[in-house]
């Protein structure tokens, strides 16, 4: 908890939730993105259409799902389709405005790793794998990325590209339907790709965060824009909605 009365995770979720605009169609990854996307739906974007890879479209969960296929998602959905259909007819065909993802590693060109730390054949850590993310990253209109900032997470080059951002050399997105990562939200600040080089730059820090801390926690020489902004702190209303959502979720998941 900072002296302002909110945690670094809370401001990350709240700032991330503000990125979603009302009425957008959003393909949601589990975990941090799911929390932020649902906070957006409960606050400023009531008409956002949330899609999960389990085939649930237009879902309005009362509590946050632990998995992408919790019953809550199906019960609260406008429609539920098969998994082949969700990827082919809805994502691949271009019906998704925003993909909302997290990962174990991100690099300076917004490439995401959720497969291995180390080499593929002899991994130091075998991560769960890419799941739905590769095609979300290539086919969604744009991608919002959300993950906690650390030098282990923000690396110069990812060990493995599970989901492509702008490619190993920042070469761009000519081969893909979607525009790629538009913004990266962390617990320290906000990064966006340079329109020309596609390299992620620091465009904002959260209130009270020192730029040097962000540079220390980034595994490449992070560029900082000249007009660096400070993010708007969470409002009392945003904090209340986030905490109520998490409280409802904790109560529901504890019971078995």
């Amino acid at each position: 908890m900072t002296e302002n009365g909110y945690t670094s995770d809370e401001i990350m979720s709240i700032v991330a939730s503000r990125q979603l605009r009302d009425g957008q169609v959003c393909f949601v990854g589990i975990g941090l993105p799911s929390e932020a996307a649902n906070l957006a739906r409960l606050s400023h974007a009531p008409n956002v259409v949330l899609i999960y890879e389990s085939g649930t479209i237009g879902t309005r969960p009362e509590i946050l799902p632990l998995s992408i296929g919790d019953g809550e998602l199906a019960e609260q959905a406008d429609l539920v389709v098969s998994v082949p259909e969700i990827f082919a007819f809805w994502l691949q065909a271009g019906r998704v405005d925003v993909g909302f993802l997290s990962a174990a590693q991100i690099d300076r060109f917004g490439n995401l790793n959720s497969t291995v730390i180390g080499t593929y054949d002899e991994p130091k850590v075998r991560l769960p794998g890419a799941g739905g993310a590769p095609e979300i990253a290539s086919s969604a209109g744009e991608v919002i990325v959300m993950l906690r900032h650390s030098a282990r997470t923000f690396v110069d080059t990812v060990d493995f590209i599970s989901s492509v951002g702008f490619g190993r050399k920042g070469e761009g997105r000519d081969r893909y339907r979607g525009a790629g990562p538009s913004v990266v939200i962390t617990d320290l600040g906000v990064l966006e790709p340079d329109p020309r080089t596609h390299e992620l730059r620091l465009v904002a820090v959260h209130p009270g965060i020192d730029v040097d801390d962000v540079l220390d926690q980034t595994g490449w020489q992070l560029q900082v824009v000249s007009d660096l902004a400070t993010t708007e702190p969470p409002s009392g209303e945003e904090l209340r909605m986030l905490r109520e959502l998490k409280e409802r979720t904790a109560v529901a998941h504890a019971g078995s």
Partner: protein
Amino acid sequence: MAEFTSLRAAIEDLVPDGSVVAMEGFTHLIPVAAGHEVIRQEKRDLTLIRMTPDVIYDQIIGSGCAAKLIFSWGGNPGVGSLHRLRDAVESNYPRPLEIEEHSHAGMATRYAAGASGLPFGILHGYTGTDLAEHTNVAIIKSPFGGEEVTAVPALNPDVAVIHAQQADHQGNVGLWGITGVQREVALASRNVVVTVEEIVDELDLRGPNGAMLPSWTIDAIAEVPRGSHPSYSMGYTQRDNAFYTKWDAISRSREIFSKWIAEFVSGPDDFSTYLAALDDGTLTYLVDDD
């Protein structure tokens, strides 16, 4: 035509050592009781296929039943890693496990191709990823204008094993809610085993996305109430999120895992011991604090 049988007989007859088995369920309707029977019968050298291998595949792999895993996301949903899967991949314990890894979109396309009798399916995918270099995909050009697409080989498992809500007395199977790839895997596989919550006079097909698999597409049906725990069967059971969290602690240690498997899976005669322990609160006692 589907035959009603015991789960034990279905697994004995249709899941021989060395076979290619897809036990599907996209978070929902996971055939856990059937997976336990595979462990109980000490099957060996299986090739396991599943988009989202979770707790039940962790148990099967940790029990040494599998030689290969074909998958797209191998984690404990919302919790973290599958520790038995990781131990197999990182340390070859209890035996080496070959992996063939895809994306979800790729696996879904592979099942749909298999169900369609095609040699491969196509999608926009894998491009720009390192996965493309480590798995069996190929970039091909459309004969109708030259657009590049990615081809993935069809999946045709020897046997599909799925859980569903209901079967009627004729052996027609009804399922609803998140249907994942249940129909695709059943129609892609040479043999199909289904466990159901209940055998009913008439299928409900209530709720979203109601679907049916006709009796003549299925080989064996066994009634196993709560057979998807800790997954769930919409309309019958709730997902046991707390168990998924506890599984992290059980599976972290080889010793605790082995003890747990012996006590609740391989030692007992059938799934009823597991359910009894679930009901009296002892299923996770090995890692409970109190």
